[in-house]
């Protein structure tokens, strides 16, 4: 594979140097062209139309863990580019991330982050702390700033189970690499405003995992209701939002059948009350 391996087939000297435990740092030293967003782009004009946009993501903590849910739609302008996209990524045993914004770059970023965490864990013999993971992702977003300024903005949402605190945590980012810890719930993407309004009314401290998943689906439904770029549950094609759960037992993708059942509950509920469940006024 490529220049780094030319000739003898023995492991190149760069591979044998003690150096860093960061895969990103190693790659930028040995083969920087493999990193996302390292190529020079022509100045002027936005290239944002070149890759579809990933839309709404919601995350919510519940006692003992955290839940991450995303709709399935990707859009290019007014066109639906993809209706069954997976925007959630298991990054390691105790964390997951989701992306909103330029899909092509976001997926690459998630893949790289996944390798970064695993690489560190294998080299050091222990995983990074959740804080460490969150900070690492911030640096990686920052390195995408050049592309972000040309329209390829990627914003991730990181969730994880913090073993030292025994609780689920949520981290959001801005395109510059600013890292913000969110409490209780958060949403990102084009429909996030509507989703957050919905979560605000539905969130309770004592939600069970299933109820948290249901609340996330309600929030995504509300986002899809008002934002054209967010996809709602597609009952005819059987395409439903995806849900990842991270608890002390690790990461788990909620089974399709389980999500389908919850989504059907939401859809059925909306036939009677199209605006969804009400919250008490006082």
């Amino acid at each position: 594979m490529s220049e780094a391996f030319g000739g003898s087939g023995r492991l190149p000297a760069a591979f044998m140097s003690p150096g860093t435990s960061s895969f990103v740092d190693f790659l930028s030293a040995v083969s920087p062209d493999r990193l996302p967003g390292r190529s020079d782009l022509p100045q002027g004009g936005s290239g944002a139309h070149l890759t579809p946009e990933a839309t709404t993501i919601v995350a919510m903590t519940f006692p003992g863990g955290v839940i991450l849910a995303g709709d399935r739609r990707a859009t290019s302008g007014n066109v639906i580019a993809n209706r069954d996209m997976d925007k959630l990524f298991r990054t390691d045993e105790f964390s997951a991330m989701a992306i909103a914004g330029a899909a092509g770059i976001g997926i690459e970023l998630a893949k790289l982050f996944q390798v970064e965490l695993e690489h560190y864990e294998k080299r050091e013999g222990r995983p990074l702390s959740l804080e460490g993971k969150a900070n690492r992702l911030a640096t990686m977003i920052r390195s995408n700033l050049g592309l972000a300024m040309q329209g390829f903005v990627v914003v991730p949402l990181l969730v994880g189970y913090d073993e030292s605190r025994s609780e689920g945590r949520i981290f959001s980012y801005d395109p510059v690499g600013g890292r913000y810890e969110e409490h209780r719930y958060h949403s990102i993407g084009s429909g996030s405003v509507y989703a957050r309004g919905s979560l605000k009314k539905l969130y309770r401290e004592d939600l069970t995992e299933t109820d948290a998943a249901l609340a996330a689906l309600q929030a995504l439904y509300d986002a899809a209701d008002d934002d054209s770029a967010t996809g709602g549950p597609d009952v005819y094609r059987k395409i439903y939002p995806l849900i990842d759960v991270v608890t002390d037992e690790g990461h788990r993708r909620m089974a399709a059948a389980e999500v389908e059942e919850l989504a059907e509950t939401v859809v059925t509920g909306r036939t009677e009350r199209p605006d969804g469940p009400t919250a008490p006024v006082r």
Partner: protein
Amino acid sequence: MSMPFYVSPEQIMKDKADYARKGIARGRSAVVLQYDGGILFVADNMSRTLHKISELYDRVAFAAVGRYNEFENLRLAGVRFADMHGYTYDRSDVTGQMLANAYAQTLGAVFTDSNKPWEVEIVVGEVGETSDTDQIYRITFDGSVVDEHDFLAMGGSAERVTTALRERYVKGAPLAEALDAAVHALAHENGEQRELEAASLEVAVLERSRPHRKFRRIQGDRLVRMLEGARAAGKGSPAGPRSPEGGAGAD
């Protein structure tokens, strides 16, 4: 200036090989064997943090004996190599064979090019979909690769350990039985018969049924419980610890 004495290439290679063998023989042994659910790695290792057995990639693990700094260097390089390949192509494209080749080339080059050969012997194991597709490669200090099956021992007194392992090894045995065979074999190192405890063993498996990354360490209370189970499994078999001459459990 005096001219150096002429030394024949055969002699140089022989001296290097002897040097490497002596270095490897000073260390404790490690064994690798297949069981019904994957591949088991067991090393005689007092340290809980300086590992002889490690994960390289999803389905691939690494075990080594000899000089720590040298095999640790190989391990780290292997992790970089595997991660880079998997990132560039796909996770399923990283294979044990690829890593074994890279290690063989590296060790071979070191052996011929430098004055001091590396005093290491390593194993790259890859767990497949079925036990028939499991792969175990043994790479020695001079870069030769051997495709091994069923079980192997390396390190200090590999021959003795192999003989002891052959007595107990049963093809397709469950994990407890395989662990018993491994511990029995390691206890026969240097002709002595020791009682190995959890604290002096490093145990890990490549578990076929595990999702994502198949490598898992077995340590702490879990190892203690498993060793008890293994001893019980060993006593039940025809070749119990009391009668090592009782014949192998299979064939």
